[in-house]
């Protein structure tokens, strides 16, 4: 039953992707209302899925790679709903939806929904650590999306080739301000996630700690580079994309390690 909710949610996000593609092809790009509605509906079904799964498990649904990917997709959609309109970046829906679709389709197709034979006991610190870290990943994903938007807009301005999408993307300075804010929010949440990991009452695998600190350091360097103006906005945008790609790969690694050496 819960997987059907996820399929419906994926269809909603896919509708936003298809709608955007059709409008882009026709040279008419007005995805604001439709995308926000489609992403909103998809988010409701995601929430219903996570709620059902959480109820079934009796804890935060982060017990395998499948749930981690869905939780991450949910975080991305939630942060988009929260900050997208606030930063006048509603168009982010056009960029957010494909990422969520990729995450959810992968989670649905890959054989990664492996249930633990025994019911895992609740551990509030561990659940807080895992969920806050994934919300931070969601924020980094949005920073990555804003980075893509920045590079698309920048490229059009540099080459003087302005497409229909140009007039719907936010101004460069607004996008860069959004990237900076998202980086800071993500960094603070990720730091909280790492610190809370040390309160779980169990020794953490070394590879996880190293990977987590690696991601933390990478984002610390980007933020510092931005703050001290070593890095031009274009490079910050590009690093947001690289940073999130690295973080996502390491997240896979961390979750994979946890499944081999599960925490109690």
């Amino acid at each position, binding site marked *: 039953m819960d997987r059907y909710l996820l399929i419906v949610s994926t269809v909603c996000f896919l509708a936003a992707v298809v709608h955007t593609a059709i409008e882009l092809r026709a*040279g*008419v*790009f007005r995805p604001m209302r439709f995308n926000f509605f489609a992403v909103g509906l998809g988010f409701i079904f995601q929430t219903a899925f996570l709620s059902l799964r959480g109820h079934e498990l009796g804890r935060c649904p982060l017990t395998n790679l499948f749930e981690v990917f869905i939780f991450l997709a949910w975080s991305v959609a939630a942060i988009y709903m929260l900050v997208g309109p606030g930063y006048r970046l509603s168009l982010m829906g056009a960029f957010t939806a494909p990422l969520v679709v990729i995450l959810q389709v992968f989670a649905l197709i890959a054989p990664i929904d492996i249930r633990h034979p025994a019911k895992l006991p609740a551990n509030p610190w561990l659940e807080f650590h895992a969920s806050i870290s994934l919300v931070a990943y969601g924020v980094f994903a949005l920073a990555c999306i804003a980075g893509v938007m920045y590079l698309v*807009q920048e490229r059009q*301005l*540099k080459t*003087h*080739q*302005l497409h*229909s999408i*140009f*007039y719907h*993307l*936010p*101004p*460069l*300075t*607004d996008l*860069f301000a959004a990237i900076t804010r998202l980086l800071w929010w993500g960094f603070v949440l990720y730091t909280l996630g790492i610190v809370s990991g040390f309160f779980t009452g169990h020794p953490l695998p070394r590879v996880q700690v190293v990977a987590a600190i690696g991601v933390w350091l990478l984002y610390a360097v980007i933020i510092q580079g*931005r703050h001290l*103006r070593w*890095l*031009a*906005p*274009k490079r910050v945008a590009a690093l947001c994309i690289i940073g999130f790609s690295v973080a996502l790969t390491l997240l896979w690694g961390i979750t994979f390690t946890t499944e081999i050496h599960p925490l109690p």
Partner: protein
Amino acid sequence: MNLFCIGLSHHTVDVATREQFGGSATAESIVRDAGCTEALLLTTCNRVEVYVVALKRISTDEIARCLMRKIDTDPHDYAPPFYRYEAEKCVLHLFRVASALDSMVLGESEILGQAKKAYESARKSGAVGPCLHRLFQRAFRVAKQVRTHTEIARGAVSVGSVAVDLAQRIFGKLSVCKVLVLGAGETSERTARALVSRGVSDLRVSNRSLDRACELAQTVGGRAVPFDDWAAQCREIDILITSTASETPLLTLDILAPMLRERLDRPLFIIDIAVPRDVDPRVNEMEGVYLYDIDSIRSVAEQSLALRRQQVAAAEAIIAEHVTDFVDSISRGLNRDSQTGQHPSLSENSLRPSEL
């Protein structure tokens, strides 16, 4: 009763012909002189049109005579190719005009304002009755819908508006932007004015002749800067508009590179409208610098127009839907009135279905 429009536009005649018509005529004078029940005169730099509702048929020549500046000239002698659209075609034409599909610059926004002004003026003089009232109100609705639901007005098509559009895409709010106008030419003045109209408040003008710089600064509400200081100003400004008569580039990589190091996170938008160019084209390769010369501005304008042209079919579809609906609603009104035997004021001035 007849609804029709006659007119001249940039499609049919040149400006020398258009300027012979519409001078002192008003909607009121047309009603009086041509013996029609309602009239509305729409005159812009690109067209002279009269929309008429009359109980009897009025010839094009009669209306043309009302429009002529020199009343002693016979329109037959002059014989400009006035177009005439009757009933449904008239409705279609007005909707296309109001939606700027018939304009010289496709999708421009001025025509709607001009049509509203013409309507208001005719209404005040009493030349507009229920039929033209309904027709024009619907035309305004159609124009709004076309602008909202298509990209017909998207993008900019003149140097000034392209500059403003691009500046807004880079900086968002222009009220916080600092602008330097280098060279006090006519195009830079127009561009500066366009930026000021969008909220730019910090505008500096530099010119080889300080007097001319002061004059332009005063006109556009900025301040003059000595020509020797213009390079130093580039450290502070966000937008540079340059149009000097210099034979060699004024702004080169060597001059700009040290300044950019100090303003790494602030973009610099340069509009170089000088020929020969004032800015070395390689400057565009520098990080955070967006250089547009006259050719690239023209290219952006052409891209905007191409984008607008793509939208014509969608706009025409909206218009066609409204024309059908408008004609149907008029016909329904007539049928209802004939069934009830009542003749409300609107039906008296409405169109016969046969005429549509």
